[in-house]
């Protein structure tokens, strides 16, 4: 473990209790170990119910962990000292109806303990940064969703926090709105802030995040840069190899059954954009021995190989693969069950 992590969790467990009389428990986090480094843009991915929001709430002190440990900037997660240095943009942020952009910034600034003077100094710069300059006098309830999100970002930054935690910042926004949020995040990167981004929009994460963690079923399944994740995924036979050959499907079928040892699995894809007599083969096992074996077999049957193409996996592929793998229940706590299980809060 690195010593300078700004967010660190170790064996973090959260179990929800439900029901008035017949208490039932649900384990949302099942031992999460995570480190977020200073000045990085960290993306947390996961399907709905993966435990992402639970993890964020624990980091902010909104929820109490049932087990394990979480620290933020060296302070226990949720402590007043830790919260002073965090800016938070919640999912579906709701501003009180009576606020204007200006009064909302003042209110949240005061909640962060800032003086009137400091708020007055920082407000124009922040409004400029989020593109709301000149609109601060309008009632927030008349803002568009994108404007509200940008105002939410402004309030999260008004006390110049060291860490910004954003929960689905682009959810429900149009492409322009998303682009604006991305720009702000880039500005934050330039300012040297640490951003903890929780999203299920993979393209966003892929575009802005330095490192990504994938959560599923309350556990951290993958962690690394996008390149690392896709690379590792490719080396784990996640990559595909495409062969374009001059042959008929019957010839390919004959090769698959006649070979000894048996040829690696292959899928014949319909022809798209090639010349007549061309066939595209997709090797789901993209390893070099499989490719060599198929080249040998094709050439031994005098079939011409027109092209060989390796296809690199995307983050979405990695995500889907990770989520699919995690869909197999691993413990009784995956599903709702009665209280009485050991280790639950």
């Amino acid at each position, binding site marked *: 473990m690195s010593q300078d992590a700004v967010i660190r969790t170790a064996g973090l467990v959260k179990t*929800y209790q439900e029901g008035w009389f017949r208490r039932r428990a649900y384990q949302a986090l099942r031992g999460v170990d995570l480190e977020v480094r200073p000045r990085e843009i960290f993306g947390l991915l996961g399907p709905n119910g993966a435990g992402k929001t639970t993890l964020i*709430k624990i980091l*902010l*002190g*909104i*929820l*109490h962990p049932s087990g394990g440990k979480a620290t933020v900037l060296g302070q226990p997660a949720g402590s*007043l*000292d830790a*919260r*002073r240095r*965090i800016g*938070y943009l*919640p999912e*579906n*942020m*709701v*501003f*009180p109806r*009576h606020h204007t952009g200006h*009064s909302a910034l003042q*209110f*949240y600034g*005061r*909640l*962060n*303990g800032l*003086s009137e003077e400091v708020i007055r100094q920082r407000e124009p710069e922040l409004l400029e940064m989020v593109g709301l300059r000149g609109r601060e006098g309008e009632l927030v309830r008349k803002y568009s969703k994108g404007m509200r999100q940008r105002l939410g970002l402004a*309030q999260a930054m008004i006390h110049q926090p060291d860490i910004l*935690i954003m929960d689905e910042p682009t959810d429900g926004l149009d492409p322009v709105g998303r682009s604006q949020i991305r720009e702000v995040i880039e500005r934050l990167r330039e300012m040297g802030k640490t951003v903890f981004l929780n999203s299920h929009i993979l393209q966003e994460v892929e575009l802005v995040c330095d490192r990504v963690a994938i959560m599923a079923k309350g556990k951290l399944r993958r962690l690394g840069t996008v390149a690392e994740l896709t690379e590792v995924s490719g080396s784990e036979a996640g990559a595909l190899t495409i062969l374009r050959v001059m042959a008929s499907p019957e010839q390919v079928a004959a090769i698959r059954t006649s070979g000894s040892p048996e040829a690696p699995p292959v899928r014949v894809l319909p022809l798209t954009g090639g010349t007549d007599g061309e066939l595209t083969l997709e090797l789901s096992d993209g390893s070099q021995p499989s490719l060599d074996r198929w080249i040998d077999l094709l050439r031994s049957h005098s079939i011409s190989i027109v092209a060989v193409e390796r296809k690199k996996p995307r983050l979405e592929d990695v995500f889907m693969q990770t989520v699919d793998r995690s869909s197999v229940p691993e413990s009784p706590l995956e599903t709702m069950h009665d209280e009485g299980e050991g280790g639950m809060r």
Partner: protein
Amino acid sequence: MRPYLAILYDAFLEAIQSRVLWVLLAAWVLLLAAIAPFGFIEEKSYQLRSGDILQRSQLLEQLQQAARGKGKPTQLAVVAALPESARELLTEQSEDDPKRFTSGRLSDWLNEAGRSRSLYDPQLWPRVASRAEWKQISEKDPKLRSEEEVQQLNRLLLEWSFPGQLAPLSSSQAWVGYAGLKVGEPLPVSINQARAFLELFVLQGLIKIGLGVVAMFVAIIVTSPMIPDTFQAGSLHLLLSKPISRTWLFLSKFAGGTIFVLIHIAFLLSGLYLIAGWRLGIWNEGLFLCIPLFLFVFMIFYSVSALAGLVWKNAIVSVVVTGVFWAICFALGLVETVMQPIVRIQPEVTHVQALGDQLLAARQDGALVAWDPKASQWQQAFDTRGGNRKILGPFWLPRYGELYFGRAFVAPFGINSDGVRLGYANLPEFATASSSSPSSTGSSQPDSPPASSAASSKPAGESWFSGQRLESLENLLPRTRRAIGGMGTFLVLTDLGVYAFDRSAALARSKPKKGLAGMLQNAMGQLGSQSRESYRRLTPEDWQVAPPADLALSADEATLWVYSKGKLMGLRPEGDLWKPVVQREVIDDEESVALIAASPAGCLVVPAQGNRWTWCPAPKTAPGGTDAAMGDGGESDPLVWNAPVDHPPRSLTALSDGRFAMVDSKGYLWMIDPANQSCLQPTWDIQGKVVSVTPGNQSLVWVAHHIQNVSSLDLSNGQLTPMVTAKPKRVEWIYEWLVHPIYWGFPKPSSVDATILYCLKLGNDNKLSLDPALLGQTEQMGDPWQPLWSNAAFVAVMLTMCCVYLYRQDL
């Protein structure tokens, strides 16, 4: 603190930007604007009102006779001044027709006569010219008299022509006005008295119902979404991510919610203060104290609403839970309010009467009860209860074996005996029994036979409780203020003077006639006929008494004392009448209520407000002294001293040893020796629970305490002996062991009303008790600040629960 102040300030911003706030404020403005035109209109008026006709049927009878040329010359002169149509009607119809000859119609006719410039005839009314204050007007040429002078003079002539039939003239009359217009009849009281009434009843009612119920419910509905909305995920998570504690976040939000209500209450009460002061002259600063009190009442309900809002996070559920809480509090409060008077106030023994070995008692609720030793309980002897009544008496006439009592209605400004019948119980088995109270004839009466020892041993049979021996006589005198025993009968103080009950005349009149005459008599009785012949007038006809007033007779029956409007008058008999021989200003404030009691040595005056007591020695002046001689006719000067008593008096009784016993409103008994100006509180364990003191035989005094227990006090040795200890009845048991403990343990938002009332009454204690008889009413006012502590404890518990819930709960 800055973040929490920010939350408070934000709540204020939210409040002033809320449409609901402005809509409600507009509603309050309309309400205040609607009541602002109310005010008082005071005019010098000599008009007769229908209420001034004291004895309608007798007045009509005299008018009818005068219309036929019979009666006194003065009455003939008045009838001659009536309108022609009135004279014809009076001449045509000799019977009483209450629908045709209403009090209103009679007063209209007499008012017509009152405007006549030719009514005054110096020969018919020679007394007018002899009075200095009337001389100037009477000597004027009738044509030169102003309209006001004519009416003023004529009103006097009318009163003198029909003595006892018309209420005495007050200096001015007041009306309730709305935008300068008079509303209804003139007020039966002065403006100051009306102000006191408005201040303590109307204003209090308006505040309690308007603010305490309606506005409070509106406030709960309006503010109930605040806590659930705050603790909704969208806004709460952002707040919780800030460096603030959950507890203080909740408390700040709670305090913020009260800002909305504070604005309303402050606006409404300030408006009421200004309007009440500007329009009605009621400048009651207690209204400002009500602002934090109502805010506190709101906080009680809001704490329940907040907890429900936190748990269920739903404004509707919050309102419903608060409504259920209010309903439970209301129901418990109602049961307590209904049962407490039944158990703790109504059964209070206000007067004890011993007949032989049988004890009778008058109770606070007007019931007359007899002690049943077998059941160890007081049993109802005569069915004398009903409504808001107060019993006058009972007065025991041992020579005849008759027990008299009257039940007057208790009105805000005093007792109202109009239309109330005098009742009596015929108890021949005790006819020769000795009396044990000065309120009875006593052994000093010349016509009282000696006490028979055999009579006292008569058993108290079931007949006591059968209610069979109750008889009904004629009505009490109108405007009866006070009745005391003495002179072998009982004396009645009315606005028209002092009267003694004439038993023989009353019984003769009440003897039922047979046949049609009897039926007619009964019908007349039902219509409220009164007979002044049943009462013998003791004071001169032109000697009137204005309330607040009280009456006392010395034990030697040598001096009759009357207190009226700050003055104490001593009367001595002269021929058939009693005439004033001494008059003293004893209290500066004319409207101050005072209790008086007399011994042969003098009269003690105990004011309801303050502790400046006065002792007036009995006059040495012989009857017949002139007005000028009054006050310095050789009698000793009054002694005035500050008594060490903090609470207003409840009753004052002269004892046989020359001392006086005073029971204060807190239930403490004081023994007073006015000659030494001493006022001592004996160290008995019943102190604080004493409800009344009744003199008994010789040195015996009956002391009622603990609601309905009675002990006897021997003045010769100061020994207190328990005589009667009542066993609790079932309803009392249920109240003491079930209802009251539940009520005690449950939160009581409504009990803050007592504190609010106390604040409204600050500096006004007993001003409204315009009759000494009402001082004896039990006022269930304990420590006025106690409801604040008990309810504050409840609010603290609720808020603690909220904070613990918030701390433990995953949000």
